[in-house]
């Protein structure tokens, strides 16, 4: 392989943030390929700053590079200026380590964490110098594979990706490496791509879309997606790592030379979540809960800080306050003499019902960054529908704890466009924000509460997968409603995401295989970097839908029936369809369910199907907390007395 660096170097004078393209991170591996190695290019299809911190990609990078028969390098989507310069100079997509051309690798492996990057995937395959459609590629082209949460509905990318990996990648990546290595060891003349795809499809957790065909009725409704023959399973199950303790990765987190998002040490403390928030795809598809042992967390933090030189560590998971013994863990890290006195701990994804004065006091000892909570729904009724059972009381206590411990700025995440939503639920967001400002004023003269509002996009493998997404017009109406309600309120800021972006995300989220042609049209019309508001253009998506004879109504806004075939029916995250449907009915009935970590099993299927169990160190739920803690939820909507005069909206009445 020949390095493209001498040709890349002259371009870097003229592009923004050239450090994106130079590699050289601490922890980067750049071993040259030996003859028997399988060469992987791990690609994050967004900018370097967004992609570099991705933990999934870094875990696979280490596992592969530690193998005696694999090498892995990385690549990211070049920004538009660099892409234009590369295309003009005839330079293909390259790796950042050795600046090798993407085509020189055996596998291009994409991480898919968000739907709006799909057009970037096509663009990068094209930039690599390959046909974007799998059918156009031959045995001389690298294999194109993809993993990450979005692969739980792989159909929109089925025509472009040779194989999808479902679930945890730690084990299956090695199995794939062996299958590919075996295939590559054969004489080149007799190598058939079909044989390799067959070998991959035989691995648990690998879905090869070309071996499955969708069937539609005369009206264009999906009937089923079925295997072409009986050599592949009718349903492909995800992979689950039973014990996170066996995978203390990454051991040497990449330390970038330039600023990236989440620029700090990240240690994953558990995987999976059983809080059961009905909108949350991550919480559904990553079950069961698997905690990392506390001592291993402490060791990974100590080793990671020493290795990286960072002074901040984030304990990551879907809900870190639920980690058994979280307060002790945080205190131990902060008090560890090995770290000096200047280490700060951040806890992303804090649930308000587990955030106590104790936690607040621990994490503010070193540095006060902003605090973010995610109540998601503006009223208790709404939160029962989405099963985010945070009582008004819990929310205000958490905010009180934060302000009393010195924070002056609190950010709250909400969604609009949720099932059964009424205008009073939307207005409840502003009401709630105002009360939080009021709490803050008791401690500080000037406080800021930011309510950040996103339009809800239903996701596959969740109880809301049957729900018809709100139209752009309806989301806009609700945004205006909310904006007006918050106008003039001192200390309260309301921000919202573009409702049009929610519509495009909806197309890709629950689309079937026909959406592939739509994505290709958007890409061919120049629609890359759709995650970036300055480049997003719903018009491109609407035109592409029309050209393919499809509509937003049909793909996004329509409610699905109970017996309707869904494009991801042949993909399994372990969850029983009955469980999801029952939970959907419960949602409409405004009934919450408790967390099965600490209460009896609902038989969702995630544990039983895979023969795994929750790995939770503590048999008791964390302090505070409302689900499974035996708290009285009957009064969950009760607004504490001190607020009754503040907002007489009626939502405070016990239901």
């Amino acid at each position, binding site marked *: 392989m020949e390095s493209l*660096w001498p040709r890349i170097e*002259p371009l*870097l*004078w003229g592009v923004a943030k*050239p*450090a994106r*393209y*130079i*590699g*050289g991170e*601490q922890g980067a591996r750049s071993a040259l390929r030996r003859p028997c190695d399988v060469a992987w290019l791990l690609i994050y299809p967004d900018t370097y700053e967004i992609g570099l911190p991705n933990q999934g990609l870094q875990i696979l990078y280490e596992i592969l590079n530690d193998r005696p028969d694999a090498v892995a390098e990385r690549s990211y989507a070049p920004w538009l200026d660099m892409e234009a310069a590369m295309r003009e100079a005839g330079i293909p997509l390259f790796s950042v380590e050795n600046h090798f051309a993407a085509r020189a690798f055996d596998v291009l492996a994409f991480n898919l964490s968000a739907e709006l990057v799909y057009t970037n995937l096509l663009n990068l395959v094209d930039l690599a110098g390959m046909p974007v459609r799998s059918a156009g590629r031959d045995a001389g082209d690298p294999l194109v594979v993809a993993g990450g949460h979005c692969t739980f509905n792989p159909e929109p990318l089925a025509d472009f990706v040779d194989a999808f990996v479902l679930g945890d990648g730690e084990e299956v990546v090695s199995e794939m490496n062996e299958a590919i290595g075996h295939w590559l060891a054969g004489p080149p003349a007799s190598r058939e791509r079909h044989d390799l795809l067959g070998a991959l499809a035989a691995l648990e957790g690998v879905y090869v879309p070309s071996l499955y065909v969708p069937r539609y009725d005369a009206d264009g409704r999906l009937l089923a997606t079925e295997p072409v023959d009986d050599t592949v399973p009718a349903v492909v199950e995800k992979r689950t790592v039973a014990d996170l303790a066996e995978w203390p990765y990454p051991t040497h987190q990449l*330390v970038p*030379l*330039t*600023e990236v998002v989440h620029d700090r040490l990240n240690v994953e403390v558990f995987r999976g979540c059983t809080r059961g928030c009905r909108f949350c795809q991550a919480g559904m598809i990553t079950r069961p809960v698997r905690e990392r042992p506390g001592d291993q967390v402490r060791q990974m933090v100590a080793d990671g800080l*020493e290795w*990286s*030189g*960072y*002074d901040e560590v984030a304990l990551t998971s879907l809900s870190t306050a639920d980690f058994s013994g979280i307060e002790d863990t945080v205190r131990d890290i902060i008090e560890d003499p090995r770290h*000096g006195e*200047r280490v700060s701990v951040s806890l992303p994804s804090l649930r308000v019902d587990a955030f106590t004065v104790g936690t607040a006091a621990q994490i503010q000892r070193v*540095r006060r960054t902003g605090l973010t909570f995610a109540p998601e729904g503006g009223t208790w009724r709404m939160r029962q529908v989405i099963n985010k059972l945070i009582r008004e009381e819990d929310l205000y206590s958490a905010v009180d704890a934060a302000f009393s411990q010195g924070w002056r700025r609190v950010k709250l995440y909400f969604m609009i466009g949720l099932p059964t939503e009424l205008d009073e639920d939307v207005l409840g967001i502003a009401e709630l924000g105002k009360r939080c400002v009021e709490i803050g004023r008791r401690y500080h003269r000037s406080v800021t509460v930011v309510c950040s509002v996103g339009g809800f996009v239903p996701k596959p493998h969740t109880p809301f997968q049957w729900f018809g997404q709100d139209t752009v017009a309806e989301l806009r109406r609700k945004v205006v409603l909310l904006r007006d309600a918050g106008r003039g309120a001192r200390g309260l800021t309301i921000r919202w995401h573009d409702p049009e972006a929610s519509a495009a995300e909806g197309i890709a989220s629950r689309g079937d295989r026909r959406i592939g042609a739509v994505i290709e049209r958007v890409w061919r019309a120049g629609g890359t970097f759709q995650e970036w508001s300055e480049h997003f253009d719903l018009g491109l998506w609407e035109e592409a839908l029309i050209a393919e004879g499809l509509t937003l109504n049909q793909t996004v806004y329509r409610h699905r029936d109970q017996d309707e075939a869904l494009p991801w029916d042949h993909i399994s995250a372990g969850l029983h369809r009955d469980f999801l449907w029952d939970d959907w009915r419960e949602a409409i009935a405004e009934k919450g369910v408790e967390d099965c970590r600490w209460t009896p099993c609902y038989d969702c299927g995630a544990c039983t199907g895979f023969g795994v169990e929750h790995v939770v160190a503590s048999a008791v739920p964390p302090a505070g907390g409302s689900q499974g803690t035996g708290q009285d939820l009957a009064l969950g909507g009760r607004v504490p007395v001190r607020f009754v005069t503040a907002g007489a909206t009626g939502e405070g009445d016990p239901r």
Partner: protein
Amino acid sequence: MTIPDATLDGAGAPTVPPNGAGAAPGTGRPDTPAPVRDRIRLRYTKLGKIRFTSHRDVARMWERALRRSGMPVAWSEGFSPHPLLSFGLALPTGCESRAEYLDIRLDPAERPGRRPGAAEPAGGLPGILSGLLPEGIEVQAVGPVPDGAGSLQQDVTSCNWELEVLGVAAQELATRIEQLLDAPSVVIRRQRKGRQVEDDLRPSVLALAPIEVAAGPGPRGDGALPLRAELATHPRGVRPGELLEGLGTDLVLVRACRTHQWIERDGARTEPLASSGTEPGNGAPHAQERAS
């Protein structure tokens, strides 16, 4: 890892120079307690691929490397404490340098004593820090900041640059250089906070000359012509790109390397840290090779 203050001696023995303000007492006598110096100054390179990182990026690399080194860096007080590092003139992104400087304030309360019998790390402080910094950043010298010295940004008056340009033949370049030097003023336009402003470049060009090369494709095979310049830093640091604009907009800058920074005071010209064994003008060829 802890860095005993003895490393100041270890590294300082060859590199701490008599530096204008008088020789640092105690250097060369490693058995006596080191002088209490609260500020040390380092010279380092920025060569190869890493030149595409920004000034801020380099500052962060240093913060991480210093934390890993265990050096007793002093911290600011207040709401958002930060380590007391003071970088010199920002190097434009994309430019290389063999003469970057950093002043570090040490915390006198935290300075550890030398551990009895502790082995002296090979290469002393420069070696340790270079090992903790990315490829292309190599610490070449360390010494105490002279008494009474101001900040690097205030004190440094000019910088030497080696540039390589494409776009015109060698003869034409030589002519343009002469014209620029003969002109009473050379007005260039630049963007400042989104507005076009005009500046006279001429007073800032202290020296400018082509570097003689044998006829042919040049040292890197791309036909680029090398030249050497000394550019003033006050009232405003002139960037190599601006100099090039003064030479003609058809020129393309392909390489730029800062080779020296100078402090001129009372007619005498010194470097912020006097040169050690390796003459910076010759660079550190091994570092350059390793990093590119």
